[in-house]
């Protein structure tokens, strides 16, 4: 169940970041910094740490027009359980959700720090 909730949380947060960048016509990195600035001071450190870890990958994937579903699956914060459907909130991308996820995973695969963080 926590996996399900983690996936919901990831899609919510990535959607907000994506829409902040769109609304303010800024980079994804700037959008993340803006979101962390909005958060009360005592929680900003945690926010910046997450932005540091996940930011580059989220930015790279969003810049390639990938939606929150694809980003969160490629970060393995959303998982398709064996025998279960591939869960998504948004309409699937034209190339198909599975294809988009595989492509995104290739992009994030190269990242060492992400791998170590995910292990943690």
């Amino acid at each position: 169940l926590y996996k399900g909730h983690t996936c919901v949380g990831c899609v919510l947060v990535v959607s907000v970041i994506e829409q902040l960048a769109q609304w303010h016509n800024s980079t994804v990195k700037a959008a993340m910094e803006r979101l962390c600035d909005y958060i009360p001071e005592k929680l900003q450190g945690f926010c910046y740490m997450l932005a540091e870890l996940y930011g580059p990958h989220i930015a790279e994937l969003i810049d390639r027009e990938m939606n929150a579903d694809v980003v969160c699956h490629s970060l393995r914060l959303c998982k398709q359980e064996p025998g279960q459907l591939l869960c998504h909130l948004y309409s699937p991308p034209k190339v198909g959700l599975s294809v988009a996820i595989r492509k995104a995973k290739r992009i994030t695969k190269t990242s060492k720090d992400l791998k170590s963080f995910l292990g943690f």
Partner: protein
Amino acid sequence: SSVCAFPLLANLCEKIKYVLRNKLPFEDFDGDKFSTFPTLRGYHWRGRDCNDKNTTVYPGRRPDNWDAKSDSNCNGIWGVDPKDGIPYEEKFCKGADSKGVVLLGDSAGAHFHIPPEWMTITQMSAKSFVNLPMAFSDELDWPQFSEITGFLNSTIGGWTDSLYLRLRKRNRCNHRDLQNISQNGGSSGNILSLIKSIHYLAEALLSALILTAVFCRFSSKTSLHHSIKRGYQAFGVPFWGFLIQGRIGILFFRERDTLAHMTTPKEMLSNVVQALQYLDSHLPNGSHVILTGLVDGRFLWDNLHDRYHPLGQLNKDVTYSQLYTFLDCLQVSPCSGWLTPNETLRNLTSERALQLSNVLKEIARSEKFANFDIFYMDFPLRQTAEEWRKMGGEPWQLIEPVDGFHPNQIAAALGTGIIWQRALHEWPQVLGKANPFNDQIEAIFKDQGGH
């Protein structure tokens, strides 16, 4: 293996687990289950302690020697009238049929709410997240604004009305006598352990025991320690109570096959009767319990499915139907029987809900208990929607925008009025008498120490 494995943190972890499992205040120096700290199950959830260094001083207890010397029950009334030497508590509250409010419930009873401004980009600013630390330390619940135990002015839209505020207005001796022992994910499976959390301590005034027994939730029983505080049956003054059934949060299913895992009428009867029998062996004589039926959750799909979710407002790309499907796919849907495009399943779920309501009606009609009488009322969703329509509102405005599922602040406040009127007209004995000394209490003790 876990951060709690570190010796230094082991104790802290144990305390956190104990508090979380037992729905107890995290900060409670005298261990009397009442706190001077707002969140972490503090006074947002229970009447504020007026002396957190004295375990015999807490809201809702029988006054110590009529509080001639100090305010032992935190209702702000104490001391002796110099004119005649009679303690004020004795003069104004003796025989006044005072009552508190105790709610055992689910996320609806605790008043679950995720602020939509956290995901409405067009209005987002630093102001949007000011309440984030408080919200998380209250488990995303807002009991301080809730329908049964609310006492602060709402900051999440709508207005606050609650049974507690109405009881307090009816009899100022009830000040601060409230306990909201609800949990996100409450169910009839764990309502029994929740009810066992009624921790009976010496001296209790009359109190309203309001139970939101949520059922049809397929979940393992969670063992909850005792956390509600009240008086021993021997010398407790009668409780009266509501057993509010069937909040919207009723159909939690982790299983694919929803219907097969829905609480059956037989389970329902067993769970609720067990809970009531337990209460009967603990509640003071002369208490009352009101059962309410289940909501018809088709209201949610019918009024929301094709509307845009806050996340979908900017690009018009996320409807509630998509949200429900996403949650159901992840098996974290709070209500897969009703939050589904499958109309047949929605209708079957409502059919079962009606069966379960009839179980409650039958319990109220036929079961007899030694220490309380028991009544039944339908869950007032239709009346609430009707009230709101008369006020120019639309039904979808009664539902939490982010989760698309819980009753929101407006629904909570309107629901209070409906339940109150019903009790007032059909079971006035349950609400106690109006206290003729209210004005004098207010003249002498003003806001009685506030909340």
